[in-house]
């Protein structure tokens, strides 16, 4: 398992979702990806994208201006 971080700050949806999708294409099952965003819409869209592709959200931290979403990659 490897931990990766993706900086999607200042990007507006759906760009954080697209960057997450493209990053996960390069990862393996069991890897963990932490996405840092500023668009509040990402907190809805990234989990929705993960649900339809079978990846799991393992943590979400919402601060005043930043959202950190941690994803466990599952490509099975």
């Amino acid at each position, binding site marked *: 398992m490897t931990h990766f971080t993706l900086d999607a700050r200042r990007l*507006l949806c759906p760009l954080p979702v*697209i960057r997450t999708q493209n990053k996960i294409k390069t990862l393996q099952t069991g890897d963990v990806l932490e996405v840092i965003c500023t668009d509040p819409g990402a907190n809805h869209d990234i989990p929705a994208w993960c649900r*339809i592709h079978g990846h799991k959200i393992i943590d979400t931290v919402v601060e005043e201006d930043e959202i950190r979403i941690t994803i466990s990659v599952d490509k099975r």
Partner: protein
Amino acid sequence: MTSKRKAVALISGGLDSMLAAKLMLDQGIHVEGINFYTGFCVEGHTHAIRRKDRDKAKRNNALWVAEKLGIKLHIIDVIEEYKDIVINPKHGYGANLNPCLDCKGFMVKKAYQWLQENNFDFIITGEVVGQRPMSQRRNTMPVVARESGANALLLRPLCAHLLPMTHPEEQGWVERDKLLNLSGRSRKPQIAMAKQYNLDDYAQPAGGCCFLTNEHYASKLKDLWASRGERNYELDDIMLLKVGRHLRPRPHFKLIIGREEGENRYLEGYRRQYTHLKPISHIGPLALIDGTPDDDDLLLAARLVARYSQGRDADQVRVEISEGSHQPHTLDVKPLADQDIPQEWHV
């Protein structure tokens, strides 16, 4: 049927493409969705920026549709490639700067490339004959099929009976009898189908899903092109056209003035790229300058920004100006009066 056939569906997030995909799922076809991000998609951008809208529920409608249908959705960034469609549309523009027919052809072409790369069998869209004045006419729908390269692999399930037979129908991958013959601008059949499928809460965008169809947005893009003497743009340009109050007091520069806290915060992200002004003696907006202002222009810009601050009626407002890597400097200015701001300055 010996093996499960695979269709890639263009999913906009609206009802029609959702129903088209549903018809294919009902026939046992494996469907995955594809959605293209051009940079002009409406999809709640301004809601994400403006403070007053931040508490409203937000969702990406294409993702919502995919989840509702239980299909995968692939969102593709086409920002760079799409520029040529916006700048040089072979078939011209529809409403405002919407390159309607070229856009549809481009998206089907991209879907066809995706199909080839991912070993899918055919493409479906939610198009309905006669629903759009340019791209969805009986005589332009074959143009999209031909120019995209998809030809007979492009199936429009909602109006298939009104169009020539496609390859998936000829091969028996899908049953033509179960496809539809919808036409025209009425939404009643689609709404009835949605009810039948127990689909509610689907997106019904009043102004369409593309900023290029919006008159005010298109006028700001035309102004940008005119001021630069060329029809081109970067993503930051077209994002900034969605934010703030745009005033062009002189041909060689314009101001982008935040209208509220959320917009000011968004504009702050551009401070390193643009000369910017902010009132410091009174509460007021952040303003970016796009262009090449001289000292007189900066004075005028400061007076304009002061007008939109809480010091608009004061004798003097102190405005801080930051240019590139230089130390910020201040100007004490008298705010411009409303009558001194000609309407034509507003882009």
